[in-house]
């Protein structure tokens, strides 16, 4: 995983609550067996009409936001299906930061595995950022969002922060704990399935 670096772009406002992962990447694209190339399917049914023409009223189709890497949206973002394809699609499309008042649990955890930083901010602040016209800087190391006029601190667990900043391979880290896992297994009362 690539290490997370400072980001400075305009924000893309997606003014909706409870955006579910079925909308982020619809089911017809879950049949692929690779992780790459999901960006073109991001918000597919919102972005395109039945003839695969871009819908003009959807925010991602506004050229102004073309180079934005920061999505600002409503509460409970990423609810529903556990599909990590949703995160792969956001990342492949170019979003590296998602700001919302709250996230669904599985989606939130999936973000960190793919180098995306989900930031929880109080609703008032999120509303304000949605209307921020200039660039927003995201500084993970110092846990700060910087607009033209203000600096906004944000919370993140120290563990998740290191995973992102160092782009760590979590599995490699865990496999170094082999002796602890084996020790646990010796005492487990739960029988094998087969």
């Amino acid at each position, binding site marked *: 995983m690539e290490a997370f670096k400072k980001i400075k772009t305009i924000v893309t406002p997606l003014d909706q609550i409870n955006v579910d992962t*079925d909308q982020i990447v619809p089911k017809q694209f879950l049949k692929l*067996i*690779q992780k790459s190339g999901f960006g073109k399917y991001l918000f597919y049914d919102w972005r395109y009409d039945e003839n695969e023409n871009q819908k003009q009223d959807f925010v991602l189709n506004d050229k102004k936001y073309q180079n934005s890497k920061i999505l600002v949206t409503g509460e409970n973002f990423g609810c529903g299906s556990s599909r990590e394809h949703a995160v792969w699609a956001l990342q492949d499309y170019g979003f590296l930061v998602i700001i919302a008042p709250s996230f669904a649990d*599985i989606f939130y955890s999936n973000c960190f595995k*793919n180098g995306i930083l989900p930031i929880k901010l109080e609703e008032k602040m999120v509303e304000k950022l949605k209307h921020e016209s200039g660039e927003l800087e995201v500084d993970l190391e110092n846990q700060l969002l910087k607009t033209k006029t203000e600096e906004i601190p944000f919370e993140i*667990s120290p563990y998740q922060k290191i995973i992102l900043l160092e782009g760590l391979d979590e599995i490699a880290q865990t*496999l170094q704990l082999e002796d602890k*896992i084996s020790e646990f297994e010796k005492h487990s009362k739960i029988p094998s399935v087969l």
Partner: protein
Amino acid sequence: MGKTLFEKIWDAHVVIEKENNPSLIYVDRHLVHEVTSPQAFEGLRLNNRTVRRPDLTIATMDHNVPTKDRGLPILDQTSAIQIHTLEKNCKEFGIQLFDMNSPNQGIVHVIGPQLGITLPGTTIVCGDSHTSTHGAFGALAFGIGTSEVEHVLASQTLWMEKPKSFEIRVEGKRKNPHAVTAKDIIMSIIKNIGTAGGAGTIVEYSGQGVSDLSMEQRMTICNMSIEGGARAGLIAPDEKTFDYLRNRKYTPKNYESLVEYWRENLKTESDAKFDKTFTLRIDNIAPQVSWGTNPSMTCDVTEHVPFPEDYSKGDQNQKKSAERALEYMDLKSGTPITEIKIDRVFIGSCTNARLEDLVEASKVIKGQKVAKNVQAMVVPGSQMVKKEAEELGIDKIFIDANFEWRESGCSMCLGMNPDILSPGERCASTSNRNFEGRQGVGGRTHLVSPVMAAAAALEGHFVDVRQLDWD
């Protein structure tokens, strides 16, 4: 202070614990299916890793599989490749697979308990959010993403922040338990707590309203925990639980000694404290019908499609979201729910496709016909459910009423196989999600119980199943 059931299971599975860090949790059972696993196996291959415990890992194919003409090659090439990839991966990594021709094939959350793979007090994960279903047996069971699937395959463990605990008490007795079902209980709960009400928590369902339920009904409750935002839902095991799992294909040899231990230990202590609580009284609840595009947008069958301002109670974001939902659903506020006409009926999914669901629905339709212009189908949750239903003659009741009787799989719950709604079609569905496009682009989903779906199939619109003459 005593511990909750969740805390007991959690504590028994902590491999490593450090302050201000997630804990490393051991996984007892890992269920795998074709859609969320290919990239995980590929990750193992790229890094030259193996599956640490193939003996704790079980795979089946359910999301993608066709529900008819199983003898023919799969027409959709991408589906065929995904299914073939699972076969190849299971062979390469030594994992037991129930493929499309296996008598044990079915929706992963239906076959786990049926085969005795699901056990009380265990941790169970799967790359599917409805893994919460297994919590009905007092297991800590939750959905994970594909990166976590890879992590569990490689290490049999997961890093996890300890969630908060949430007790949902279900009190009272339903007046007509055939017409007002477990589905109506869980939909009422979600209507009250909202789609994110359980976020960050593990729910324990308790109270007489829960202990009265059969195991299959308890699975319906736990299944939809995720629709209330909770990653897992738990019910303390009791004699019904132990009886259900006795003498299944993979029931452990030392089962009775395990039961003794579970009976003694797997319950929340009386002085334990939950971080959050909610109580639902069910004496007077009605059958539920969802009207919007998330499962909390639900009302009684006797009510009208709500006005956004009433639904949102002053919250502007909720109001906007209700307006959008009504537009998508093509519904007018004030319309009685019973006047909503439907085009399709789907009885299936990991929420409501077990034997009891099919038996109850068949009682409603016995000797009658599906309304003209309505297309109705039953997709049993597993090949075992299908076989048991056929032995009881349930298939004939459905077929005689002009329902289609299919092979098992996830089917139209998420429409990854050919079973989808056409744009604009309206469906009474026993599944769990009414999201935009979930059952097909432009499709409109109303979530209901199996008996409510059966009744709607007969009448061509929603009806209060309590008023029909059946059973």
